[in-house]
């Protein structure tokens, strides 16, 4: 389903992507900043996410809370989220109100106040967000595995940040981060929905055109060196059962291996959801489900692989069935991974992944919010052009490709293996992982 996408660049470096979709009287407006936890250094981990929270705390012309009132008054919804590679803000409105989104976003791109009192009260909110995540064993294990798999590259830490950094970060740290990364030349606007392209472009020029170009944002230069041997982490904390997580360094989204690995993950566990709201093929005929869940070793298993700017990880995770030793789950998973690296997948498996990908892609094209999300995320991690090339990219993957990337990435030396084993006592240990934070 090719779609109409218009790409424009303003003189100040702002990139604009417009996708007119005139099926419902609704439009969505997004600003994607090329900054996330990937751009953070020790001492200020979590700063991108915290800056996102501060963007709702007011500018000289839109006082704190006013953004929310404007959105409510006009029947809209808004939100923001931060991940390793980006920070994104959106408003969705009935299409005759979409100008408000331009007003809000152009204002807070440069004028957010970062009032010290607001920073202080938000500190407890941010810490509370982290503490809520700490109640979940998955968070501990993912954080620990991520911190072990990445020694050098900032994918090392979770987007929420280390607690000690959240306790000590200052208002100036936050403001400096904002001023460094929030500029038209480090942002992408994505609008999708019921509007006329030329009219929308004119409005964007009017609202954003006069914002001066900022200094070039510092680039992330860290490169994770090749891993030279398996790494293992063991977490003993109170919990209901054991959890398994193996992370393999994988290709970045602009790497030719991206689509073969995407298909590989689909054969292993089913194609995941591509929409903003999740979803995904059930994947209960997949290799990992049959070997782990049907066999009674685990109650859930997945293979996650997301597009990232720098090489991320291919994550195989399982919830161990209570009473089963985690070693057994590990052996069964490794056996499946060795099998797929040593013998080609079948035509039927390949066809299944193609069809699942096509379905998920169609489902994820329903509604303007999904459209805005997809275009933005792909532009940040590679190029929005990937949207139209996506299904072809998957269709072109051969059985030999799948086997080749399995043998290349799913190796012992390339993996970090994490176990979460329930303990009787409540001794907490520090641990990392990556997921989108709101």
């Amino acid at each position, binding site marked *: 389903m090719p779609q109409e996408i218009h790409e424009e660049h303003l003189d100040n470096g702002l990139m604009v992507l417009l996708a007119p979709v005139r099926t419902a009287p609704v439009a969505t407006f997004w600003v994607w900043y090329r900054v996330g936890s990937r751009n953070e250094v020790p001492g200020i981990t979590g700063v991108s996410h915290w800056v996102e929270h501060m963007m709702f705390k007011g500018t000289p012309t839109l006082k704190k809370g006013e953004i929310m009132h404007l959105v409510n008054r006009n029947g809209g919804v808004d939100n923001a989220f931060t991940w390793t590679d980006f920070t994104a803000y959106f408003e969705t409105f009935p299409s005759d109100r979409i100008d408000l989104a331009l007003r809000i976003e152009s204002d807070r791109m440069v004028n957010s106040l970062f009032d010290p009192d607001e920073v202080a009260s938000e500190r407890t909110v941010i810490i509370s967000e982290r503490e809520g995540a700490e109640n*979940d064993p998955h968070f501990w294990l993912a954080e620990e595995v991520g911190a072990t798999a990445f020694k050098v590259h900032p994918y090392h830490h979770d987007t929420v940040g280390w607690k000690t950094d959240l306790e000590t970060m200052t208002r100036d740290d936050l403001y400096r981060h904002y001023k460094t990364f929030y500029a038209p030349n480090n942002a992408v606007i994505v609008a999708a929905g019921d509007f006329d392209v030329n009219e929308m472009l004119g409005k964007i020029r009017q609202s954003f055109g006069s914002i001066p170009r900022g200094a070039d944002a510092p680039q992330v230069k860290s490169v994770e060196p090749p891993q030279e041997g398996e790494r293992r982490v063991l977490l003993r904390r109170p919990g209901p*059962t054991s959890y398994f997580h193996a992370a393999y360094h994988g290709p970045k989204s602009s790497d030719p291996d991206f689509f073969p690995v995407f298909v590989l993950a689909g054969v292993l566990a089913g194609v995941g959801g591509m929409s903003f709201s999740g979803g995904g093929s059930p994947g209960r005929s997949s290799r990992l489900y049959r070997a782990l869940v049907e066999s009674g070793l685990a109650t859930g298993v997945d293979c996650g692989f997301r597009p990232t700017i720098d090489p991320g990880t291919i994550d195989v995770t399982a919830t161990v*069935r209570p009473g089963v030793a985690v070693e057994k789950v590990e052996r069964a998973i490794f056996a499946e991974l060795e099998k797929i690296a040593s013998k080609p997948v079948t035509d039927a498996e390949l066809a299944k992944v193609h069809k699942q990908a096509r379905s998920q892609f*169609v489902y994820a094209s329903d509604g303007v919010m999904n459209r805005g999300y997809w275009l933005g995320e792909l532009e940040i991690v590679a190029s929005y052009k990937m949207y139209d090339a996506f299904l072809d990219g998957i269709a072109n993957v051969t059985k030999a490709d799948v086997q080749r990337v399995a043998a290349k990435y799913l190796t012992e030396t390339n993996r970090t293996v994490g176990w979460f084993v329930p303990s009787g006592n409540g001794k907490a240990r520090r641990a990392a992982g990556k997921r989108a934070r709101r």
Partner: protein
Amino acid sequence: MTTLPITPETITRVTLDNGIVVLVKDNPNNPSVTLRGRLRAGGLYDTDKTSGLAYLATAALQRGTRKRTFQKLNEELDRTGMSFGVGAGMETIWFSGKALIEDFDRLLDLTADVLTHPTFPRVETEKLRAEILADLREADDDTQHVAYREFRALCYPASHPYHRLSDGRAETVKRLTLAQLADFHARYFRPDVTTLVVVGDIRANQAIEKIERALGKWKARGKPAEHRIPDAPLPKQIVQKKTPLAGKTQADVVIGYPGLRRTDPDFYALSLGELIFGRLGLYGRLGANVRDKQGLAYYVYSGVEANLGAGPWAVHAGVNPKNLDRAIEGIVAEVKRLRAEPVTSDELSEAKDFVTGSLALRLETNEGVAGTLGDIELFDLGLDYLQRYPNIIRAITAEQILAATQKYAQIENYALSIAGPVDL
């Protein structure tokens, strides 16, 4: 208003000979189809001894049917990129599916097979039981879940279905027999309690013809069981419970009382009041005070679960244990204020603008339309509901909200449940 996707003119609603109510909305803009169904049955028929029966019996439908083994069914879903699920809540059983439009016939065939011809094969059903028991064990370690579950037990008397959650308890789930599951299906799965909504790239008459072909032979015997959620008494005192869980950092809190039925005339006034209280924008007044001003919680919001029965009106919050007392005081202070004085005209007009204005946003996807249609049917709101809706909302006054709040928001007597670190 001409752009509303749901009006009597744009929706086809028919009742098949066997009693299934079918609603179809044709949307040619996405080459897929979304199917949503409901049966008027569920965990309300469980007893204290069979808690979790509806849940397990319904989940087991997918584990084997006359035409499909579990494996064959999974293979079919994965080969087509379809999704399908079925599950039991307390008062309704839901099923839903999604497919590319080219696979619609197959989705209907599978749906009919699962709903009408389950075989409850022993091996697969036992695997399912083990998975549910593992889920229950994980839920027992989840502070949000535990806080809510214990809140429901405090808020409703043991004889009321809402006292429990539909997924049951380990000790009852372990004892349920295959015969009980099959009997539950035979008794409660009936076409005359079933509603089916289809939204997608299909003409209404074609969709109905296909549904008739797939499900027309399904027949019910006798009369359906009475389907009624009893009234819930308001609490007579403050009842509270703390549940300590090892290894936790944050405490999750649920505080509230029984609310009202969706069909109650006070519904609109109470929901608008509740929106202002704990949802609008970033969690309404609660968010402004407890989260933003005092910085006590990452999340604090309210929700009215107005269903066929009077589900709870509750405030949910995640709090650092050392802030617990202050957070609860802050929440109670906001409830007192809501009961003491009318909402301001600014708040009221903002809430009204929001719910009427955002209607289009909720209806921009097939899933949004299907969900709304399902509710319109379940609560008997009429296909002109969305056309009438703005006027219903605009007519609500601050005085009506105050009266409804005073009637339902119990400040002297409430249920309070906390789950969190051991040293709470």
